[in-house]
């Protein structure tokens, strides 16, 4: 009897688990799915709650407006540029430093590590940092996206831990006997062995650049330099939907809020698409990155 009871509760547990997972899945996915179908549906049907599961009254009005909006493409171009160059500089500064800190024979490693870790818990705050950037004439230049915070200490620790655990010290010793320098060893041995790590922190950095709007909000004034996220803010939140600047209720009231909304749905898709397309391929690396980092805090 005990046996049947146990399998009974086991079945109950499985059903419960399945239900809970289904609910979680729907809560996460449905809003995203809804935005996709809303962006291609007739905006009147969307705003009156007629669109739930499948797109209705297919209309690409939103997308055609978006494609004609030069603000979005300027923003897109800037963001792609900042993201590509920024991520490259991030890796260029972070990886060699992490390699050095992983070398046991490097005598200054503890003190330098401490120097880095302190900055995770304490910083000068917004105003002194802002005044420093002004003093260095970095405000209103593209370099403010690239240089100032190009070393993220958390990712540095992840990289260091990875090098420590995956590059046995015998490997370097063997190479050194053959006359291999640290430069060569890093470039020709350590890097090729660290593809997983490079993808992980490269992607962390990449997503960070893509989604960053704080930097531009604080340091950038010129319209020509604005990244996509700032353009998105104007469109999505400040309701400056139409490039002409007419805004809602402008000419003849024909551009009503619901047309604006369709453009907003479309803009959300267009701006998030690159990340969403990359995501499924890279997901397995993201988790690995956190695992590597959590081995040693």
């Amino acid at each position, binding site marked *: 009897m005990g046996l049947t009871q*146990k399998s009974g*509760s*086991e079945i109950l*547990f499985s059903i419960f688990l399945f239900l809970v*997972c289904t609910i*979680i*899945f729907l809560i*996460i996915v449905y*809003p*995203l799915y*809804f*935005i996709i179908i809303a962006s291609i549906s007739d905006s009147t049907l969307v705003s009156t709650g007629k669109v739930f599961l499948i797109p209705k009254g297919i209309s690409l009005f939103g997308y055609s407006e978006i494609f004609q909006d030069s603000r979005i493409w300027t923003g897109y171009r800037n963001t792609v540029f900042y993201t590509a160059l920024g991520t490259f500089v991030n890796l260029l*500064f972070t990886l*060699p*430093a992490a*390699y*050095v800190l992983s070398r046991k*024979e*490097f*005598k200054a490693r503890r003190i330098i590590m401490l*120097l880095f870790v302190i900055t995770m818990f*304490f*910083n*000068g*705050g*917004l*105003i*002194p*940092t*802002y*005044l*420093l950037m002004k*003093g260095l004439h970095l405000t209103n230049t593209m370099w403010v996206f690239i*240089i*100032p*915070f190009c070393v993220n200490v958390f990712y*540095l620790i992840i990289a260091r831990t990875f090098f420590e655990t995956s590059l046995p010290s015998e490997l370097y010793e063997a190479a*050194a*006997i053959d*006359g291999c320098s*640290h430069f060569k060893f890093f470039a020709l041995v350590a890097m090729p062995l660290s593809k997983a790590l490079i993808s992980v922190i490269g992607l962390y950095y990449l997503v960070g650049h893509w*989604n960053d709007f704080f930097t531009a909000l604080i340091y950038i004034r010129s319209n020509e330099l604005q990244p996509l*996220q700032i353009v*998105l803010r104007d469109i*999505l*939140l400040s309701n400056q939907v139409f490039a002409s600047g007419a805004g809602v209720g402008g000419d003849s009231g024909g551009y009503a*809020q619901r047309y604006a909304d369709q453009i*907003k*749905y479309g*803009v*959300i898709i267009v*701006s*998030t698409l690159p990340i969403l397309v990359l*995501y499924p391929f890279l*997901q397995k690396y*993201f*988790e690995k990155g*956190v*695992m590597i980092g*959590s081995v040693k805090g």
Partner: protein
Amino acid sequence: MSSQTIEIGSNSEAGVRLSKKPTVLNTFKRDYQLWIMILPAIAVIVIFSYLPMYGIQLAFRDFDFSKGLTGGAWRGLYYFDQFINSYLFIDLMKNTFFISLATIVIGFPAPILLALILNQIRRKKMKQIMQTTVYLPHFISIIVLVGMLNVLLSPETGIVGYIMKSIGLGHINLLASTNTFIPVYVLSDIWQHCGWNSIIYLAALSTVDPLLYDSAKIDGASRWQTVRYVDFPAIVPTIIILFVLSMGGILSTGFEKIFLMQNSLNLPVTEVIATYVYKIGIVSNQFSYAAAIGLFNTVINFIFLFAVNAIAKRASNMSLF
């Protein structure tokens, strides 16, 4: 390059040379390449993290455009005094405290629960799909998230507004009401980050010895009991550490999301220290006053961090430092 080979390669000779203890100075020549590799990172950290720390003294000085960051007259605690006695002080503290408290109380347990649930999924394929799904919102930008909230919750054209009307909840603008701001803020935060934050607990769960599950099974434990008595205790240390860390941020609500969700109608509950510092400092150029408020915030966070850490140490012998 050859001197390196000698040091590492031949032990007999190195015995003599290494009798002098290796220090930073006498290994400098050997390790000069390592120094070159780490120098850029050190330079960036010193310039962009340590120089602003030096600039904190601005909170105790007047800001003088001609004399730079540290040239103004010394004012002591004048700006702190001004902040504590300002009519906004109580509201700012209250708003900041309530928003972060709500985020911690409701937002902190969510990833723990999620990790325990995900860990129960036996079918590998299904677990993979679930994990891919729950991590996804983490990568959406804050602007897009707040934009989504705006279009979905809009009382005129949004689907949530429509549903609320049709079930008779009336015409409420969830984004412009002082009562609904915190729920919307916290729930959307959970929606976005719960999955990602569960990874660290999943990592802790993956280190549980499989033998424990086997012996629990032999002892006749149901799956509920296994979760309660095997899985949960395994992640308690992680929970405590993360809890202490999150208490250290009790007065540091994220700036970006609140700033973006702010509007004139919900301002009475959404003006927090971070947004106020931005307005006072960056928008109105009252640098010293803003720096003082920022520093005040940081100090309170530190006090909380140390206090909670001390309590955790007492209660469970777990500590950050």
